[in-house]
């Protein structure tokens, strides 16, 4: 659920206590603590946990320019190394010599939407030249669609011409570096690193990968998807279009020959969330790969945002919050410290319960429970329907409580009738969500069958020799 849905649940929780409602009427605003307590789990995770969490691998396909806060970063040639392979940079330098200018035909494999592969043959034009920026020399290559763009941008290339050229870094067979003209990083680097992390997790127990997003000038983002395919034992990364922070695609699709990165994984793994991970605006995700048992076999399981929905999202934490609130407010002499502590605990528990309606689930009662209890899959956390239904229900509860704790009542009808009148939009919303969830569960079940197809799993095991 979204933050405000949790927050308003805490606000509503406080109104179930007549003493706290009485305080509010007198202008004593302390009960707002219950709302803060209800939001506390996300506050802790997103304001602290996210930044303090361990990262074993940091994938930054397009490092930011430190002053402008977007990619591509202007770098010196001497700063580049093999570690920068597939990353997106800009280099400013002088053309030192033109090595090749040619044309021909090229064949490459592309992945269709149905998962099949196809070989495509295309004509191409290309240019290869050396660029010197005073700190070193690098080979620059423009090819195919990127050549067209390059020619349009720079016109005729001659020795001595100054250029600011951007593209991704690649490594030649002899180990030397080159810059391939492009408007995006190559996805192969992302796929390779994730595959490596999964294999290491299988041996070592856990690896956490941070994937940064790609921010471009004008506050737009290059979208890409990370797709884990357990039956094929592949990590596939697909470069997508440029999108606004609101998710509207504004073009800039990359050519097919640098759209996909595919890395084979030598160990069995399963995916717990049946959709590809999409990375675009705001920040990129962290994914933990953990060794686990699945149907009697050792596999690697993924866990999205490993710092989220941990201890902060447990019922245990709710009890701790209740105790701390009680102790503090009793100490400062607040008359209704007990009611406030209970409201705060219930507010935090409502947060845990509301999140449990979604997919991620939480570790509910640590230290008694050790792992996450899967969610009820009523809807995704961003679902407008479930968020609105929950938030509206809380508003209904608040109005209802304010009314029944006021004498004479502002709305002079029976409590049951008033609650029904207020809450009907939520009742309808939850009804639709429940009906939808059956369909969703069926789809998920089919997808999970695909992801954990044991026949393919066994076959791959033989191939992989595990």
């Amino acid at each position: 659920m979204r933050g405000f849905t949790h927050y308003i649940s805490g606000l509503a929780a406080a109104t179930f206590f007549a003493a706290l409602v009485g305080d509010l009427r007198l202008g004593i605003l302390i009960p707002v603590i219950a709302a803060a307590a209800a939001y506390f789990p996300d506050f802790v995770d997103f304001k602290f946990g996210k930044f303090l969490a361990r990262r074993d691998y940091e994938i930054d396909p397009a490092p930011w320019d430190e002053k402008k806060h977007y990619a591509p970063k202007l770098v010196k040639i001497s700063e580049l190394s093999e570690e920068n392979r597939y990353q997106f940079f800009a280099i400013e330098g002088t053309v030192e010599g033109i090595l090749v200018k040619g044309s021909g035909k090229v064949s490459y494999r592309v992945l269709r939407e149905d998962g099949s592969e196809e070989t495509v043959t295309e004509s191409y034009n290309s240019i290869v030249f050396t660029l010197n920026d005073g700190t070193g020399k690098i080979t620059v290559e423009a090819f195919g669609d990127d050549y067209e763009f390059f020619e349009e941008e720079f016109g005729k290339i001659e020795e001595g011409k100054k250029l600011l050229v951007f593209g991704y870094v690649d490594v030649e067979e002899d180990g030397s570096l080159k810059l391939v003209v492009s408007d995006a990083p190559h996805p192969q680097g992302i796929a390779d690193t994730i595959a490596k992390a999964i294999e290491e997790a299988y041996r070592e127990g856990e690896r956490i990968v941070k994937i940064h997003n790609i921010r471009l000038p004008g506050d737009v983002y290059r979208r890409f998807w990370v797709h884990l395919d357990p039956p094929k034992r592949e990590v596939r990364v697909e470069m997508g279009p440029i999108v606004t922070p609101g998710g509207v695609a504004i073009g800039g699709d990359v050519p097919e020959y640098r759209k996909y990165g595919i890395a084979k994984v030598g160990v069995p793994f399963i995916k717990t969330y049946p959709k590809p991970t999409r990375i675009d605006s705001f920040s990129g995700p962290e994914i933990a790969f953990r060794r686990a048992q699945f149907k009697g076999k050792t596999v690697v399981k993924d866990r999205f945002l490993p710092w989220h929905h941990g201890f902060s999202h447990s019922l245990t934490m709710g009890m701790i919050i209740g105790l701390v609130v009680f102790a503090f407010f009793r100490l400062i002499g607040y008359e209704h410290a007990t009611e406030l502590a209970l409201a705060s605990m219930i507010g935090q528990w409502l947060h845990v319960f509301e999140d449990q309606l979604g997919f991620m689930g939480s570790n509910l009662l640590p230290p008694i429970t050790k792992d996450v209890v899967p969610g009820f899959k009523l809807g995704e956390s961003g679902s407008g329907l479930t968020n609105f239904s929950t938030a509206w229900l809380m508003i209904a509860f608040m109005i209802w409580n304010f009314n029944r704790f006021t004498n004479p009542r502002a709305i002079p009808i029976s409590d049951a009738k008033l609650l029904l009148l207020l809450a009907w939009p939520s009742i309808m919303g939850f009804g639709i969500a429940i009906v939808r969830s059956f369909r969703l569960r069926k789809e998920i079940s089919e997808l999970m069958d695909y992801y954990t197809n044991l026949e393919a799993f066994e076959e791959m095991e033989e191939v992989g020799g595990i």
Partner: protein
Amino acid sequence: MLPLSELLIWSLAGVLFGALISWIPGFHIFNIMALLVAVFGVGELMPVQAFPFFAIGAIVAYAYVSAISSVYFSVADESAVFLLFPTQRYLLLGRGHEAVLLYLIGAVAGTLFLVIGALFIFPRVLPPIYQATSPYITYFLVAIVVFMFMSEWPKEGDRGRTPAERLWLAWRQILGGVLVFFLSGILGFVVMNTNLLPTTSAYTRLTPMFIGFFGMSWVILNILSNPPMLEQVPDDRVESGLYNTLKASFGGALGGTIAAVYPIITGGMGALVAGHMTSQRGDDAFIISQGVNRVIYYVGAFTLLFLPQLRLTRGAAAWLVSSIYTPKSYAEYLAAIGVILLSAGISFIFTYYLSRFLAKSFNVVHIKKLSYVVAVTLVVISYLLTGPMGLAVLFVSTAIGLMAAAFNTRRSYCLGGLILPVLISMTGHTGYFMHLLGLG
């Protein structure tokens, strides 16, 4: 009540007045109306009973036509040091006219929501709900403020080299927002509770502060960023789905209603709450919901002044009008709803054609030059309304508005200038804070 012909004339005069000034960046209809009253007075040029209808025409026009200034005259440079509003992004992509059309879709939806609500729902539902919840307004207000702080999304920090550095980068922005809120609050407290500004400016004492927070700082950013004047596509084309439009309209209506009914809660705060409640996502949805939200927030809030069983005074325009004349009958309420529909139709056509004209001739006058003219005008308005000390307030509030942009935090933190002093007053601590600040 005025005869219908006069009522129509004054309403149309209001629409014309609102339309002519609302496209100019930094101008706010409330400030200009206050200036009008201060300079010309009411009762001589127009009958006092006509003023509410003149105001409603002007406010409807503002709710529609101000889309022009927020789309075309709040452009950013390519460096995008600051995060952009969706409308600014549309402009940078040459789709400014599309952004205006999306806004207009929202504005029309907002008008329909408002008119249907005003005719069939508000008179029955609003009075009991308001009566049940009004003793707890401070609770809602402080809750929204706390949520604003707690939910600030750290836009930086991901790329820090160490956990400590990441944490600092994230919290630098959050703390920047807190600082902006409290600095605005202190300024607002001083302006409201001292005789810094002349007593003759009783109705306009907050004007220079708000011009600085939102108008002047915006205009200065336009000047500093020297944005490119990109060619715009004047085609009547929008990319958005029906579901997205309906969802955005609903969210906008919810946020606008919250802001319209409850005091101090502004359209932006209402949008924040409703956006979370309905889980809005997408630039198109954002712009549509802004259109709905602004119509209901500005026009709806003012309409409450006409609602006989409730008659709430919400917003600066309502206070200004109610100080001169308060509508009393159902006939006036129904006439107001009619005026809203009429004004909305005219404002829609005006905004649409103005947007097409601007899209075609966007790069004729550079925004930087226009911004210089507006900056001087805003200074003149502040001086006329509040004298030399008003200019000092304008200077300080502009600096605070620019701080919000520099810290990359929500500009709405500047509303601390209104929220903090009101909260202090509501909780009975004004004297204590006066003493704390050495003011009394």
